[in-house]
């Protein structure tokens, strides 16, 4: 890299880093405290009994329990084991990283001067609608076609165990409550672990973005060329979101710098990324069947891409 390129990379890299880090920290602190202080059964209490309304409510749970996409997978794995319907769990899994106050705030801040209110509301609405649609489809599918075989087996075992009466089994099921200061330490450790996990992907993502942003990366001109194509641009940015694997609390700061791309393409980037990326592909495999993950990825790509293109035309035709 020439000295000029080093200087350009450094300026772009540090500026995006300075802008995004506070929002990652806020997200991971909240996520860490939820991880330790929130009992798994708490979420069930927020959901209505009716299946349709339960899925709708699950799509909004992120507003109350905000977690990013990295933290949400272990959470839903635990929730499914605790009896939360799979349709609700998947709706929450897809919606929570987008439909939450931290992501809304970071998107709004990142797009100041670029139609922040429209981008934030469109992102939240599209994220919610897509997650609910997936939840409704999943509610019609058999568990075995969605969840990993091992998880289905363990759920079936748990159902059998539930019939087992604890009052006469002769052993104690209670756990010693740890001291409050120990839980605080655990919460900070969980927050730091989440921060490091996210910071690593963020640093990689920001590095790649800085290379493209300043024209150092060899494909920068090619990517710029795609930016003008109304169909290829959202597809290219969704592919970029998939590769970059950014956290939903900070991805808006990257999207906002892609100034050659249309508003609709950025919306696709911001909606697809938190639902499907390289790291999520691995995380999803701890819960979901591979076939289901592939179908989910294709479905999300087509639905989000199509809606973003349509939405772009609608918004700009109205102006």
């Amino acid at each position, binding site marked *: 890299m020439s000295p*000029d*390129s080093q*200087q350009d990379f450094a*300026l772009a890299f540090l*500026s995006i880093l300075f802008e995004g880090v506070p929002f990652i920290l806020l997200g991971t602190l909240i996520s860490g405290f939820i*991880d330790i202080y929130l009992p798994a059964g708490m979420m069930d209490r927020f959901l209505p009994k009716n299946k349709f309304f339960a899925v709708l409510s699950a799509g909004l749970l992120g507003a109350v329990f905000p977690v990013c996409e990295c933290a949400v997978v272990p959470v839903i794995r*635990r929730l499914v084991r605790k009896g939360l319907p799979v349709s609700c769990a998947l709706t929450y899994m897809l919606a929570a990283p987008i439909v939450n106050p931290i992501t809304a705030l970071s998107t709004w801040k990142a797009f100041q001067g670029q139609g922040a209110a429209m981008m934030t509301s469109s992102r939240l609405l599209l994220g919610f609608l897509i997650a609910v649609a997936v939840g409704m489809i999943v509610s019609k599918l058999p568990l075995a076609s969605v969840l990993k075989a091992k998880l289905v087996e363990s759920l079936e075992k748990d159902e059998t165990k539930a019939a087992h009466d604890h009052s006469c089994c002769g052993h104690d099921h209670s756990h010693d409550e740890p001291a409050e200061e120990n839980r605080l330490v655990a919460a900070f450790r969980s927050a*730091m672990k989440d921060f*490091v996990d996210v910071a690593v992907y963020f640093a990689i993502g920001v590095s790649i973005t800085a290379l493209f942003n300043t024209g150092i990366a060899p494909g920068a001109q090619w990517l710029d060329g795609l930016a003008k194509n109304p169909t290829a641009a959202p597809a290219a940015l969704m592919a970029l979101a998939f590769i970059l694997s950014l956290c939903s609390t900070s991805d808006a700061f990257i999207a906002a710098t892609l100034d050659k791309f249309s508003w609709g393409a950025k919306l696709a980037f911001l909606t697809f990324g938190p639902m499907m990326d390289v790291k999520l592909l691995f995380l999803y495999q701890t819960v979901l069947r591979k076939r289901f993950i592939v179908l989910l990825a294709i479905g999300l790509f087509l639905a989000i891409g199509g809606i973003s293109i349509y939405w772009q035309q609608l918004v700009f035709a109205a102006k």
Partner: protein
Amino acid sequence: MNSRNRRILFSLAVLVWSAVLLYFYASGRITKYLAPDFRIISFAGGLGLAVLGLFNLLTAGQQAGCGHDHGGEEDPHDHESGDMHPLTAVLLMIVPVVLSVAWTKDEYSAAALSRKGLYDAPSAVSLPFLASSLPALTLEEIEKSHRKTPDGFLEFNLMELFFSSGDREMQGLLDGLKVETEGRWMDEKIRNPHGSRKRLYRLFITCCAADSRAIPIVLEFGKTPPEFPENGWVKVAGTMRFPLEEGVIQPVLTVDRVLAAEPPYEESFMRKK
């Protein structure tokens, strides 16, 4: 790696990030990277990281329970294991930050500026919020809203001059007006057959330097221009013109005088505190 060492390593990585954020804020260099609204947020982030890193560093050896059942082998989750080896994670976090701190000169090179619109025609740029920055629409109001230098030049913001090229009414008012403005000095690489031109620009930062755009005007000297360092700050006074060049209206300042100037406090000149 055992849990205690992993916590110490992660805490140190977090503290390095914290130190970088706090240093750039405290030294004032943050003004080259972020728009004003984001600087205090960045500072708060640096402080928050310091608390997170120090707390975990000081309690690294302490026993702590999360207070819920992990469900045995079928639910292997814990609250501290990450996606990758701790050393790899820390290196990926630290190396690009340390390199960037070492490499940065707090400004872009000419090549990056060119990509950020340094040589774009004004009409090719459209930023919706700029209307509010344009001056009033009568000459009297323009004179009232802009200070006059002792030698009779009206002090203009560079952005006003740049975007006037896209507004016929403004062009009519500013054409032939004697103005003074400030910006960074750069070579003129297009439409400069006699070598009598330079370019004056400032960066418009919406949120951060990565999303910034160069806002340029052309300086016409009519002879060989004086020498100033590339990217150095200058104050220029002259007469504003809007000639049609290769089918594009260009904002051109025919220069009467140019002096080296102190960099202004704000790189991001659109935002108000």
